[in-house]
């Protein structure tokens, strides 16, 4: 049974639709990656599903209920969202920032309970950021900072986590660090993870399920083997790709590629 899906979802500003009648199912307890060229509506889709921006028509259904009619605080206990590169953390310490992940569970003046502190410490531990607890977030490196933001999302204790390009601006090692963390969360904690990624090979390597978008519509959605193919990549990115098998992970990978010549 799929918990989260969209039904003929259209998103846009005014007359211009960015996402058109899109229906997608997010598999439970899997890693789903959304890929597609710039401006294809990946982030827009992510934001609409997580109620950060409104949609024009269609529906987003979570556990049988329409997301835009659900109480936002209850939603915040089910879905966490990490937006694209949150800028500065205003001088907050790591511990403080992560503690805001407990916001949906607090009432009134927001006193943190014993449980809250335990969850915060757990989130810091899992993301390997405990040693920064008292440091200002802004003093950390890019990869460390991203892990801290993920810790905040984890402190929300949601089963579903959305991330919008969690590896942007990170070097290769730090990208892997973040992706492996997400993989571990998926495998050990059975979290459902949905993210937008730019790198096709990373998408193929870490995702169980890939959604390829173009011009606000799904070109192909399915397991990596079905999406990372010559035909799909030609249709989505307008590239001529050579697909092989990653010798270590046995996942499909794009070995080399050229821009397709001629008309689009």
């Amino acid at each position, binding site marked *: 049974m799929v918990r989260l899906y969209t039904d003929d979802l259209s998103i846009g500003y005014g007359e211009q639709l960015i996402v058109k009648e899109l229906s997608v199912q997010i598999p439970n307890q899997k890693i789903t990656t959304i890929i597609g060229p710039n401006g294809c509506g990946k982030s827009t889709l992510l*934001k609409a599903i*997580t*109620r*950060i921006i409104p949609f024009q028509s269609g529906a987003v259904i979570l556990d049988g209920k329409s997301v835009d009619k659900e109480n*936002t*605080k*209850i*939603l*915040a*206990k089910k*879905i*966490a*969202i*990490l*937006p694209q590169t*949150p*800028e500065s*953390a*205003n*001088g*907050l*310490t790591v*511990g*403080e*920032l*992560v*503690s*805001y*992940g407990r*916001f*949906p569970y*607090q009432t009134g*003046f*927001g*006193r*943190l309970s014993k449980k809250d*502190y335990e969850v*915060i410490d757990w989130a810091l531990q899992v993301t390997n950021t405990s040693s920064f*607890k*008292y440091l200002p977030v802004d003093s950390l490196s890019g990869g460390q900072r991203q892990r801290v933001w993920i810790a905040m*999302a984890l402190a*929300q204790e949601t089963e579903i986590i959305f991330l919008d390009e969690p590896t942007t601006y990170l070097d290769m090692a730090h990208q892997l660090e973040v992706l492996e963390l997400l993989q571990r969360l998926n495998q050990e904690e059975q979290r459902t993870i949905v993210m937008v990624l730019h790198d096709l090979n990373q998408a193929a390597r870490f995702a169980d399920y890939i959604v390829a978008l173009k011009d606000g519509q799904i070109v192909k959605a399915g397991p990596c083997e079905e999406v990372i193919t010559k035909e799909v990549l030609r249709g989505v990115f307008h590239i001529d790709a050579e697909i092989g098998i990653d010798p270590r992970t046995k996942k499909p990978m794009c070995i080399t590629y050229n821009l397709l010549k001629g008309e689009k």
Partner: protein
Amino acid sequence: MGFLHYFCRKDKIMKTSIHFSYKFVIGLILLVTMFCVSMVFGAASTSLQDVWQALFTPLKSDAINILRELRLPREVAAMLVGAALAVSGAIMQGITRNPLADPGLLGLTSGANAALAISLALIPGINYFGITIACFIGAAVGAVMVFGIGSMNKGGFSPLRIVLAGAAVSAFLYAIADGVGIYFNISKDVSMWTAGGLIGTSWSQLQMITPFILIGFIVALLLSRQLTILSLNEEVAVGLGQKTTQTKTILFIVVILLAGASVALVGNMAFVGLMVPHIVRAIVGTDYRLIIPMSVIAGAILMLLADTIGRTINIPYETPVAAIIAIMGLPFFLVIVRKGGRVFQ
């Protein structure tokens, strides 16, 4: 101080050298000291003993009467206005994530000012309650104009663009106030309100204004946790389950109440709302649960200080308190612009 107890637990996630409750108590001691200083010094010389007798005994004398009827309401007003402007500045900076936000710089004060002039012109004999309401409406109109113009450009609003819009709108609104004053021949009345500063503040005015300001403080404090999250990033706030539109609307009303009430009490006053939150953040950090109460104290202290300087620097003449504040505030403004919003980091 029961609620201070709450902050003790913050240590588990935030290692600070001095605990917040100590900072709070030190702030209170400074405030009381500053209050005594401002009560003692002035054009008419009084002693600490007179102040004590005026406040805590039913005794009567010339000095005591001056204290009770002139200086005390004035200093109470100074504290209220300083605190109100500081809190409204802190909220504005939080909502807009604009380090240059200040009710005096972003059109609220000038809007209230223009509304005050118009209401004096159109409704002769308007009472103080009417003036206060006019100030609220004016402050709201001024703010909407500034943010409307500031967001017209497609690139969204940058801190400096908003300040430019604020300068333009303020110039326009001050011109309206002046024009109305001249046309209806009430310039003197208008300027008595708008440029009078704290001179002639009476107990009856205070009675009218104080509830608005106190309500503003309470609501601000209740929403301070929401404000911290909002000040981080709006998308994060939504993701954490905050009703951002509702939160921003309520906070906007609080800002209007505080800024409008301040104008009704003392007229124009820029820079308090700009300076105080930055100073306070350097002391207590970026959590608005601490920034709001500390801004109340620091704003009150700053205003008492400015008023005392204004009353004593050139006895028997008064130096306008707005001018004193502006002399402190302008360099501060320039530093914030230069450092891109981080004054003390």
